[in-house]
């Protein structure tokens, strides 16, 4: 069987390649970061800016918390058959001072995780649809 074509599950939210990163925006006036991208009105109540720059967010962060899932979620999640448990982590980015959720990379044992652990961003398959493998950002513990 030929390998599926690989496409991002959502366009323009992350870069690919060896050092992938989430693509956010930064307000040109107050410098606040946004992910997902804010491109219309700044959400800092003290800022009236409507101009934003596209920025790649820090690739590394620390785990705020994490949760492993043992039941298949409802649609629109597209779960593999048979269903496999997966872990979601909330990760703090120190520079941007925000928290972003993402699945943990495949093969990472939930029991090896701890709040405060350093992780980095990777891009991995999340589901197959219409003969294409769709990818999304995930978190992976940094090699000690």
């Amino acid at each position, binding site marked *: 069987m030929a390998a599926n074509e690989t496409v991002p*599950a*959502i366009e323009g939210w992350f870069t690919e390649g060896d050092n992938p990163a989430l693509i956010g925006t930064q*307000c040109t006036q*107050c*410098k*606040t*970061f*946004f*992910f*997902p991208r804010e491109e219309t009105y700044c*959400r*800092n*109540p*003290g*800022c009236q800016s409507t101009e934003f720059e596209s920025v790649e967010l820090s690739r590394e962060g620390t785990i*705020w*918390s*994490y*949760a*492993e*899932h*043992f*039941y298949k*979620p*409802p*649609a*629109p*999640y*597209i*779960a593999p058959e048979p269903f496999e448990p*997966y872990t*979601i982590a*909330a990760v703090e980015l120190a*520079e*941007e*001072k*925000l*928290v*972003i*959720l*993402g*699945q943990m990379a495949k093969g990472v044992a*939930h029991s090896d995780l*701890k*709040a*405060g652990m350093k992780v980095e961003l990777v891009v991995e398959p*999340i589901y197959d649809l219409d003969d294409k493998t769709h990818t*999304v950002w995930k978190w992976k513990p940094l090699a000690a």
Partner: protein
Amino acid sequence: MSKDVAVLGVGMHPWGKWGKNFVEYGVKACNDALKDAGIDWKDVDFVSGAETVRNGYPGYVAGATFAQALGWSGASVATSYAACASGATGINAARARILSGMSDVALVIGADTTPKGFLAPNAGERWDDPDWLRFRLMGCTNPTYFALYARRRMDIYGATEEDFAQVKVKNSRHGFTNPNARYKKKFTMEEVLGSNMVADPLRLFEICATSDGAACVVLTSMEYAKKHSTRPVRVSGVSTVTPTFPSTVIEMPNFSTDSAYSVPVPDTEFRDSIAAYAYEEAGVGPEDMSLAEVYDLSSALELDWYENIGLCKPGEAEKLLRDGDTTLGGRVPVNPSGGLACFGEAVPAQAIAQVCELVWQLRGQAGERQVEGAKAGITANQGLFGHGSSVLCTI
């Protein structure tokens, strides 16, 4: 000028999976509340409905749906939606009309018929809706968030699985004799810890189910109430606050937080600000509370609320639980009704049901789950997308 309004009547339809139309539950709760208040439906001049999004158009316009079902009377109407906080928003709308002199008697009603299983987002391809995207991109369910908060307590404060299970054991004992509760079973620690893991560290018996049910309160001006009751319960504070930017604690249904890069995190985080606002309005503090009804969407989340409503400092909730302070007979019983652990969640009715429990407790009508000498109580809850919800009642 007093900012108090009176709760003249309360009524509920028992929680369960009854498989009937939500309107039937709601009318039952309304009739019970009107009877409890000792007034006629035609004396109600404002109907404040809490919306259900799972029952089609009649649910979207819940206020009018119930007004029609009770018999069109020409009363003014409004319907509120604030997810789990809808009931408090409905109470606040009614209170505002009464305090401004526009209404004397308001009926606040929420009812729901819920589907089985995980609550799911709206159907269709919704690429600009975070509630849809969180499922699509990472399979992030509601229990995901509960589990993230629970694990955080374990890693930072040393909470244990036994602590979380103990909350369920406690609440199941509280709600055991509550006629409106859905689950009437005294769970043991072994049963809770033996139930299936859903979202580690939370197990099936520690995560709130979805239920059918209805709750109603009749709110009136203090002046009106004095003609019908010698000692009415008062609503002394209502909080429907939103977060203050930047809110950096991950909240359902978002998969990211605000950034604190340019503006520092406020002194009071969102969930701490919810009850704080109600206390300030009422001019009382956590030390004055005889009891609390908090939103135990998960057993572990109840522990967060102890801290958020000021019963103890951050990191001390487990001690409060272990010392029995929040158990019936303790210093400040939490969820004497049995909480969501015994009810499951009927979204638009739940915040109103919390107030019904406060009223029964403050009147001394709570039967075997009575908190002795209850003088003041607070509810705490939170709705998706930044809706704070807290109602403080006194007598």
